[in-house]
């Protein structure tokens, strides 16, 4: 039966990277089949109506890292791409005060001055210096990492390009880059800022998704990574896609289908088929076989190499590297359906602070203590929450007058010491709700329903190992030409015809699309050879 399925490429997983990869390959004329285990596309970027009229962003909830070239090259606007503007950034404080940053830089100066006069220009220097670092690193971020471990002359050209780029940079920019890439975010911001709420706001953004606190080296790099995004060209700013990130993956699915890719749902892949060390197709868990000379896995490195491929067909040192690759997920989501508008006492009836992220991290120490728990196998007593009431930007997310609130929560380690998430789930969510209620005292009364998504559920529903949102921890030794393993950051694998295109490859996780795009470039290049 097998040969009746004649495809050029099979993509495993219809998350946003699998879909991006499929869309590019189909657009280039390849016959592409995407196999997705779930009954809907999107992976960690889905939107579900859990209650009539209420749209929940189950996992990821905001957009920024998505590479703008993908929007243009895949003509996504035609398929409904529609990122909405987040107007503000709100951080409540323990004493009832707050930091509210909005769209006007000059007005923001006044707001920052309420907290510290020195931080007004401190913040502007911080932004300018980091913006130059971003500008410097962007060409590296936006290209396939050179293979510094290879002897191939073609690779040598790429290495030369890299060295030349590094050599051409301004001394201060190089130094700032290294400080951010290797140091803690707290160390970095201490040089610019003094106000606790402003520092905490930056520090919290640096901890999203990783098992590190703001005082740990490595958080500078994560901050920088997350700041590589943009909305409408405004660096570091986030948007909210119409219909949530699930709305975005629907756009991708429409584009991929329009370019000719076929998406097959409810089709969990069991393993890769090989012959003479080359990929030949895949077998579904129900035994169905699909054949193609190219198979692309959008799953994380652990699944790609230790589950879908047979590790016995891979070099043992490579397998060892993949086995050592760290995941250690620490993120959860608690999503709420609300009967009305949460009120912040100091702002009365105002709602202009609800038009963006609500950042529950009043001090750097609050963040660090939230992290401490995770080190010892427990979840934070006072969690860090990055929330967003999406129905304030997109009225279609909830019935008129009602709202949905997405709460991204840290730190909730995948492995709990002597307990399980099944036992702790509701208790963790209670802490989240109590934290929100502490700042928005009418919150408890508004809650109509809540959905609790802990790392075990993330893993079970998306396949992201240990629930790591990036498909692999952001450690320096797991980034750039080490992602996922030295010598294999070019989307190829030791098995000919078997490729990787998920967040476990360069540049990394987030709704970014770059792995899917780069992998398609590599595949097209290789098939033309």
């Amino acid at each position, binding site marked *: 039966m097998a040969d009746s399925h004649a495809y050029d490429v099979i993509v495993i997983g219809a998350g946003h990277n699998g879909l991006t990869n499929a869309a590019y390959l189909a657009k280039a004329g390849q016959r592409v089949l995407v196999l997705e285990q779930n009954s809907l596309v999107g992976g960690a970027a889905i939107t579900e109506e859990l209650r009539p009229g209420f749209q929940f962003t189950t996992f990821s909830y905001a957009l920024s890292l998505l590479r*703008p*070239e993908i*929007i*243009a090259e895949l003509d*996504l*606007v035609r398929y409904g*791409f*529609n*990122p*909405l*503007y987040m*107007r503000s950034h709100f951080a409540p404080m323990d004493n009832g005060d707050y930091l509210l940053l*909005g*769209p*006007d830089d000059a*007005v923001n100066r006044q707001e920052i001055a309420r907290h510290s006069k020195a931080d007004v220009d401190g913040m502007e220097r911080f932004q300018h210096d980091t*913006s130059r670092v971003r*500008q410097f690193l962007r060409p590296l971020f936006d290209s396939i990492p050179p293979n510094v471990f290879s002897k191939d002359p073609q690779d040598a050209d790429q290495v030369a390009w890299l060295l030349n780029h590094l050599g051409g940079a301004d001394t201060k920019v190089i130094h700032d880059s290294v400080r951010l890439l290797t140091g803690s975010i707290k160390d970095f911001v201490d040089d610019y800022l003094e106000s606790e709420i402003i520092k905490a706001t930056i520090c919290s953004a640096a901890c999203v998704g990783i098992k590190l606190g703001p005082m740990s080296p490595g958080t500078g790099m994560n901050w920088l990574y997350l700041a590589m995004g943009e909305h*409408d*060209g*405004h*660096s570091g700013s986030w948007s909210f896609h*119409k219909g949530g990130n699930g709305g975005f993956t629907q756009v991708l699915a429409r584009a991929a289908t329009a370019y000719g890719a076929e998406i097959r749902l409810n089709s969990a892949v069991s393993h890769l088929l090989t012959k003479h060390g080359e990929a030949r197709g895949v077998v579904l868990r129900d035994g169905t076989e699909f054949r193609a000379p190219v198979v692309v896995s959008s799953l994380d490195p652990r699944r790609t190499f230790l589950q879908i491929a047979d590790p016995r067909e891979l070099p043992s040192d490579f397998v060892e590297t993949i086995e050592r690759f760290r995941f250690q997920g620490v993120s959860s989501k608690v999503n709420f359906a609300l009967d009305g508008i949460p009120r912040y006492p100091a702002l009365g009836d105002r709602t*202009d602070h609800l*038009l963006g992220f609500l950042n529950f991290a009043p001090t750097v120490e609050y963040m660090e203590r939230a992290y401490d728990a995770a080190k010892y196998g427990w979840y934070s007593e006072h969690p860090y929450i990055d929330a967003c009431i999406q129905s*304030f*930007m*997109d*009225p279609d997310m909830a019935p*008129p*007058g009602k709202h949905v609130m997405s709460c991204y929560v840290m730190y909730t380690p995948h492995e709990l010491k002597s307990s399980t998430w099944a036992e702790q789930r509701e208790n963790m969510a209670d802490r989240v709700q109590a934290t929100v209620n502490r700042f928005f005292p009418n919150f408890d009364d508004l809650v109509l329903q809540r959905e609790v998504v802990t790392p075990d559920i993330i893993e079970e529903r998306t396949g992201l190992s240990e629930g790591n949102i990036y498909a692999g921890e952001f450690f320096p030794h797991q980034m750039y030409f080490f992602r996922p393993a030295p010598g294999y950051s070019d989307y190829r694998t030791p098995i000919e015809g078997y490729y990787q295109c998920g967040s476990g490859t360069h540049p990394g996780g987030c709704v970014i699309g770059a792995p899917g795009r780069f992998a398609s470039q590599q595949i097209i290049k290789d098939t033309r050879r």
Partner: protein
Amino acid sequence: MMRTTPFHPRLEQLNHAHAWGNWSGYLSALKYDLSSKHEYFSVRNAAGFFDTSPLHKYWLRGPDAERFCSHVFARDVRALRPGRAQYQVWCDDAGFVLEDGVIFRTAADEFFLTAAEPNYGYLTSLARRYELDVVDATEDFASLAVQGPRSRDILRALTPDIDELRYFGLTHTKIGDTEVMVSRTGFSGDLGYELVIPADAALEVLDAIIAAGEPHLLRPYGEEALNMVRIEAGLPLLGKEFTSSRYAYTDAHRFTPDELGLGWLLKGIDDESRPFIGREAILRERATGSSRWRTVGVAIEWRDYYDLFASNGLLAVPDEIPVGWETMLYSAKGKRIGYATSFMYSPYAQRHIGIARVRPKFAEIGTEIQVEQTVNHEYLNVRGHVTGLPFFNPERKVA
């Protein structure tokens, strides 16, 4: 003294930016929020309202109303049934556009005209030969545009009559106790309505709309957001896309309907029974092919814009606020071929777009062009291409 519109007491409370401009001697909000982009997104995804009260409003009433209008206006009003509205232009004898506006046929012998500039003197001077009254009703009414995908839901809650209103349809209905005229028209390119409200009841009606709009995230928007949405909709604006031929010193500032991309209004121009002002000249223009311009859309791809800045050591930060001046256009070979009259980064289209006038042979969709930008204090060109208009045209606009 600067005047205020009947809505002003409420609008003043809503204007957190304290940003006002001057529209025909009335205070008119440039923006209410600190960010006009936020207002733009409200219009595009929920709904927004815009105070159009400074528009000049005229009744044209009498047995000769239809005959008069079909003489003055370039688009045939005879096909316009009572209860319908029409986008219009009017020209001078040389076939150059004087102005554009919207005309509403309220009865067989009654029309209501809205226009950006004063036209009372012009209309009355022409009306002398007709049995017709021209009444300036500008101050009798406040007018409000409610635009965006949720506009129907909001107004339906106040007056179910509007539910059935078709695109460019018109109805007289009540909001609370107030008689209002509602038309399904607007300047956003989206589903939307415009209300004409007796000035003394304006605040009451506005408050009812604001209350009905709250659960739908209705927000006020100002001139900046208005300008953004109308460019995406490809709608010309007096003072940007054209100036009135009446006040031009040279023909470089005069344009015919065909040159402005409004030729479609002239359906039936061959019909001898309607000798409207400018007809002869327009027929001559068409017969001799003497149009100097075509109005087209232009766009720049993200990549080209980004590369232009990156290669000059800068970050490309697109601005959705339309540039306040004309943007020069060149052919792929570097020859001057025209200029964009409006140019902006469109959050909807995710690229820079513009409404432009180009020489006819460069008007074909897809023609590669170069768009002049100022980078590092130099004029540098970025690759772009000619597109159709409008950029934004959702099905719900007419559905």
